[in-house]
C-alpha cells in the first residue's frame, strides 16, 4: 500500500468537493488561488511519483484492501506517472490562463476543472477495466461541462455532437468490457492479460472481438480516423483554457490504446498477440494525412490547430503502432511535446482572436493585433513546434518516430506520410501565419495582451524548449516506460503477486 499512488486521484476529488462546497463562502480570488495551489501540489506529487518509479518500479494501491484481481487496484508505473505529470503541468498552465477571466464565464468552472483532473488521473492510474470506464465517464462529463463553459451556438452544437458520440462510445465500452468479463471472468487488466494468453481456441473469437471493440472505444477518444470527426469542431469552438486542457484528452485514448494494447493484447497474448498493431499503424498513418489536409483547408486558426492535433494523434499512434521500445519511447516523448505545443497554440489563438476585433481567428485579412511582433514571435515558435520543424521538440519527436519506423516493413509508408503531412502542416501554418501577422491592415483597437495573458503561453513554450534541451534524459525515461509497458510480466506480477493486503482482516 502506497498512499503516493492514490494521492493524485484523491487530491483533485477533495479539491473539487471543497470548491463545490465553498462556492458561496470563498471569494473568487481565494478559489482561484486554492485551485492553482491544488494543481501545483499535483505537479509536485506527480514529480515525486515519477522519481520513485523512474527506474522501472511499479507501485500498487489495493483499494479497500482487497487483493487483485478482486478489488480495484491503482497501478503507478513509469508510463502512468509520465501521463500524470504531463496532465498536471498542462492543467496548471491552462488554469493560469483561465483565472485571468474566462473562469467566470460559467458556474462551477473550478470544481469541474478539478473533477476533470480526477477523471484523467484516475484513468491513467487504474488497473481495472471497468474502473477505467468509470473514470472515462467522469472525465468526459467534466469535460462536457467545461466544453460548454461559456455558451454560444457553435459551442453548443459541438458539445452536443461530442456528448452524443461519446455516449455511443460508452455503450461500446460496456459491450467490450462485458464481453471480456463474460468470456474470461475478470476485470483486472493484469488478470485479463493472464487469462487472455490462456484463452482456449473456442473463446478466441470473443476475446478478439472484445479487444477490437475496445480498440474502437479508445480510437474514438484518441480521434483516430474515421472516428476523429468530432474533434475539430469541439476543440475549435470551446474556450481557450479548456481547449488547452483538452490537448490531453486525445492522449487519454492514445494512452489506453498503448496500455491495453501492450498489457492485455501484447507480445505475450499468445494467439491474440499484438492485436492492435496493424490496425493502429494503418489508421494512424491515414489519420496523419487526413489531419494535415484538414489543417490545410481550415479557414479558422483554431480549427487549423485542432486538425494539427489530429496530425499529432496520427504521429503518436504511428509510434505506438510500430510497437518497438524505441518507437513507443519516441511516442511518449512526442506525447508530452504535442500536448504542450497544442495547448500553447490554443491559448495563443485565443489572444490572436481577441486581438483582431471582429475578424477573430478567421483566416482572412484583418486588422493588426496589438503587440503583433511579440505575439507573432510566439506564434512562430509554436508553429515550428507543432509543425515538427527543427530544432525544437516537435522535430525531435518526429525524427525519433521515423528513426524507429525504419525497422518496420511499412517504413516507406510511414516515412512518406509523416513527411508529407509535415509539409502540408507547414504550408498550412505558413499561410495562416503570414495572413495573421504579415498581412494586417489597420489596428483593431483591442487592448493588447498583458504579460499575464502571455505568461502561460511562454511557460508552455518554455516547457517545449526544456523538452528539447533535456531530450536525452527525458527520452531515457521514456524508453524505460516503453520497455516497462512492453514487458508486462513485471506489471502482472506486481499486481497479481502475493497478496498485498496490509494485514489480515
Amino acid at each position, binding site marked *: 500500500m502506497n498512499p503516493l499512488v492514490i494521492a493524485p486521484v484523491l487530491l483533485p476529488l477533495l479539491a473539487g468537493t471543497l470548491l463545490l462546497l465553498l462556492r458561496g463562502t470563498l471569494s473568487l480570488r481565494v478559489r482561484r488561488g486554492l485551485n492553482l495551489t491544488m494543481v501545483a501540489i499535483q505537479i509536485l506529487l506527480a514529480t515525486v511519483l515519477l522519481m520513485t518509479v523512474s527506474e522501472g518500479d511499479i507501485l500498487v494501491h489495493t483499494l479497500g484492501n482487497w487483493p487483485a484481481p478482486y478489488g480495484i487496484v491503482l497501478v503507478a508505473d513509469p508510463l502512468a506517472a509520465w501521463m500524470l505529470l504531463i496532465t498536471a503541468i498542462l492543467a496548471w498552465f491552462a488554469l493560469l490562463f483561465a483565472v485571468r477571466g474566462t473562469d467566470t464565464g460559467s458556474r462551477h468552472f473550478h470544481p469541474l476543472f478539478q473533477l476533470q483532473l480526477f477523471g484523467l488521473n484516475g484513468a491513467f492510474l487504474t488497473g481495472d477495466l471497468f474502473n477505467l470506464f468509470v473514470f472515462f465517464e467522469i472525465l468526459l462529463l467534466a469535460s462536457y461541462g467545461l466544453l*460548454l463553459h461559456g455558451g454560444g451556438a457553435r459551442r453548443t452544437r459541438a458539445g452536443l455532437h461530442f456528448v*452524443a458520440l461519446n455516449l455511443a462510445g460508452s*455503450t461500446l465500452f*460496456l459491450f467490450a468490457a462485458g464481453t471480456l468479463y*463474460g468470456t474470461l471472468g475478470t*476485470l483486472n487488466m493484469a488478470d485479463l492479460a493472464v487469462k487472455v494468453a490462456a484463452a482456449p481456441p473456442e473463446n478466441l473469437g470473443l476475446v478478439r472481438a472484445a479487444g477490437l471493440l475496445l480498440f474502437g472505444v479508445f480510437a474514438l477518444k484518441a480521434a483516430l480516423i474515421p472516428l476523429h470527426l468530432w474533434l475539430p469542431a469541439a476543440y475549435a469552438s470551446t474556450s481557450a483554457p479548456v481547449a488547452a486542457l483538452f490537448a490531453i484528452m486525445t492522449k487519454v485514448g492514445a494512452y489506453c490504446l498503448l496500455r491495453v494494447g501492450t498489457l492485455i493484447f501484447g507480445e505475450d497474448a499468445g494467439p491474440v498477440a499484438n492485436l492492435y498493431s496493424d490496425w493502429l499503424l494503418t489508421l494512424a498513418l491515414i489519420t496523419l494525412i487526413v489531419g494535415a489536409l484538414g489543417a490545410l483547408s481550415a479557414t479558422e486558426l483554431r480549427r487549423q490547430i485542432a486538425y494539427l492535433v489530429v496530425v499529432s494523434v496520427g504521429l503518436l499512434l504511428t509510434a505506438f503502432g510500430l510497437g518497438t521500445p524505441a518507437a513507443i519511447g519516441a511516442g511518449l516523448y512526442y506525447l508530452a511535446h504535442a500536448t504542450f505545443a497544442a495547448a500553447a497554440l490554443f491559448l495563443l489563438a485565443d489572444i490572436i482572436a481577441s486581438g483582431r476585433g471582429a475578424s477573430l481567428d478567421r483566416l482572412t485579412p484583418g486588422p493588426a493585433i496589438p503587440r503583433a511582433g511579440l505575439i507573432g514571435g510566439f506564434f512562430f515558435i509554436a508553429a515550428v513546434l507543432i509543425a515538427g520543424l527543427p530544432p525544437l521538440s516537435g522535430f525531435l519527436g518526429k525524427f525519433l518516430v521515423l528513426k524507429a519506423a525504419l525497422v518496420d516493413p511499412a517504413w516507406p509508408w510511414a516515412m512518406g506520410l509523416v513527411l508529407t503531412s509535415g509539409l502540408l502542416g507547414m504550408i498550412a501554418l505558413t499561410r495562416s501565419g503570414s495572413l495573421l501577422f504579415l498581412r494586417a491592415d489597420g489596428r483593431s483597437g483591442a487592448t493588447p495582451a498583458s504579460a499575464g495573458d502571455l505568461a502561460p503561453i511562454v511557460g508552455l513554450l518554455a516547457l517545449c524548449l526544456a523538452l528539447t534541451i533535456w531530450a536525452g534524459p527525458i527520452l531515457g525515461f521514456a524508453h524505460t516506460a516503453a520497455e516497462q509497458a512492453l514487458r508486462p510480466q513485471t506489471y502482472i506480477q506486481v499486481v497479481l503477486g502475493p497478496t498485498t493486503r496490509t494485514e489480515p482482516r
Partner: protein
Amino acid sequence: MEALISLIVGVLTACGVYLILRGRTFPLVLGLTLLSYAVNLFLFATGRLAIGLPPIIDPNLAKPVGGYTDPLPQALVLTAIVIGFAMTAFLIMLALKARAELGNDHVDGRPDPGDRA
C-alpha cells in the same frame, strides 16, 4: 431463454441505432436510452442466467458457491445504470440548450426543412 435474451439485446440495439441515426435531438435521446437498455441487459447477462439464485447470502444456510448467481455483473450494471442516467440527463439538457441557441432541434442545428411527409 438465452436465445430470447440475445434477441432482446439485438432488437434493443437495432432500434437504438436506428433512432440515433435520425437527425433530431429527441430521437437521439430515445435511441441512446434504448442502447443503454441493451447494454445493461447484455452486461447483466454476461454473468449468465440463473433463476431463483439471488446473491443474497443466507447465513443460516451453507449454500455452495454455485448456489448464487454471479453478483459482479449486477454491481456493474448498477453502476452503468446510474452513469447512463447522468449522461442521459446531461444530454437532454444539452438538447434544450441546442434548441435555444440553434433555434431548432436538429442535431446539427440545421434550419427546419418542415414536415415533408
